[in-house]
């Protein structure tokens, strides 16, 4: 186990504070959870910002990157599309992408392409709970990270959320 429920909670609080440091009242900032696994983290952060840190309002959208991936027809498993829901304008906004694990960086590359369909953001930042060091295929780094992890390629980082999996925990497992 890499992180237990308490450690995740502490990391979430730290990430929320770092976001507030850079975005103050979130008037010009929107959070985008990357489907399918980034949305749990995004919802937790939104709830923390609103309820605990009394941020007046936080806009949250979900972005599905299936149709933008570069491994269409190259991967063994057909990809299943998830819901995209962005009910606001991202033009000239500060966008924060939120995903659970940053590994090769390819999902974020796809998300960078996908978000262009919704306008031209002023800037884009990246927040991840787990940053797998030394495993990037692309020059992409997180602006906010919960925990940095050294994992070899045969290993997999598994993030489990209470809403879906019945517990909050991060594991390192053998593939």
């Amino acid at each position: 186990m890499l992180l237990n429920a308490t450690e995740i909670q502490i990391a979430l609080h730290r990430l929320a504070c770092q976001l507030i440091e850079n975005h103050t009242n979130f008037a010009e900032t929107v959070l985008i959870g990357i489907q399918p696994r980034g949305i749990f983290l995004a919802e937790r952060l939104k709830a923390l910002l609103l309820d605990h840190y009394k941020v007046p309002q936080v806009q949250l959208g979900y972005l599905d990157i299936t149709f933008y991936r570069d491994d269409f027809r190259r991967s063994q498993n057909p990809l299943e599309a998830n819901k995209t829901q962005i009910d606001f304008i991202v033009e000239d906004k500060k966008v924060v992408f939120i995903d659970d694990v940053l590994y090769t960086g390819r999902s974020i590359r796809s998300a960078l392409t996908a978000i262009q369909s919704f306008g031209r953001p002023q800037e884009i930042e990246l927040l991840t709970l787990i940053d797998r060091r030394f495993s990037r295929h692309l020059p992409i780094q997180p602006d906010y990270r919960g925990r940095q992890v050294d994992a070899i390629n045969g290993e997999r980082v598994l993030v489990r959320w209470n809403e879906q999996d019945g517990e909050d925990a991060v594991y390192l497992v053998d593939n």
Partner: protein
Amino acid sequence: MKELSVEHLLGIKYITESDIQLIFETADRFKEVINRPIKKVPSLRDITIANLFFENSTRTRLSFELAEKRLSADVVNFSAASSSVKKGETLIDTVNNILAMKVDMVVMRHPDPGAGLFLSKHVKARIINAGDGAHEHPTQALLDAYSIRESLGEVAGKKVVIVGDILHSRVALSNIFALQKLGADVKVCGPKTLIPKHIESMGVAVETNLQAAIKWCDVANMLRVQNERMDMSYFPTVREYTQQYGLTKAHLDALDKKIVVMHPGPINRGVEITSAVADSPQAIILDQVENGVAIRMAIIYLLASKIS
């Protein structure tokens, strides 16, 4: 993860209920895409699709072309009127010549029933049937069922009547297959001469009285009177057909419920449906057209994901 059970979309007869549900779920995603400011995704950048129309079509062809372009596929169009078909080339030769230019998928409309099935056995490309004679028109049936699901929440358990020229209609046959696979109850309504014999063996009830059919149904799908396919007289005059089978505001007002009115287009206003009905809020004819693009994107995307 899910994928289609078939390599080609030749007809609804050949696909399963879970295929249809997968197409619907994928179309939900694409419907969101085509309502964005930028209506395009890059998924099919490396796919080339040929649209072969051996029979006239406006909306189906436009709809396919838009669907292909919104998936970023390369598109070539072909219509029989201006081609070597007129010079005596066979179907397989025509298609193989096009495939030699590295085309991955073929969307074909052809006047002969079974043309798509035949082609799928002889050429190396994914085939989508965009209508083969009076046989099937699977993408129309899928977008019709998808539009019913959108209006009424689900298709299962709904009562659908298909009114008009059932005999010459590929839309009717594909619709019957699709609706039955999804668990709807289907009736057909029209003059006896335009109802195929033994259609009851498909589990479809026949009703010759329009008012009775309308009273029974949740959805009425009004088919076009296809003058071009009628090689003899199936009813005395168009006026008589309209009086017995044309849907009017009076029919709808006589009901104590709101039914959904559909039409695959093109509409003969004042023949199978009056303008007052076609333009009423109960008619979802333009929603059908919008859904057509999303459904076709879903089908092309799902078939393309199986090309290796």
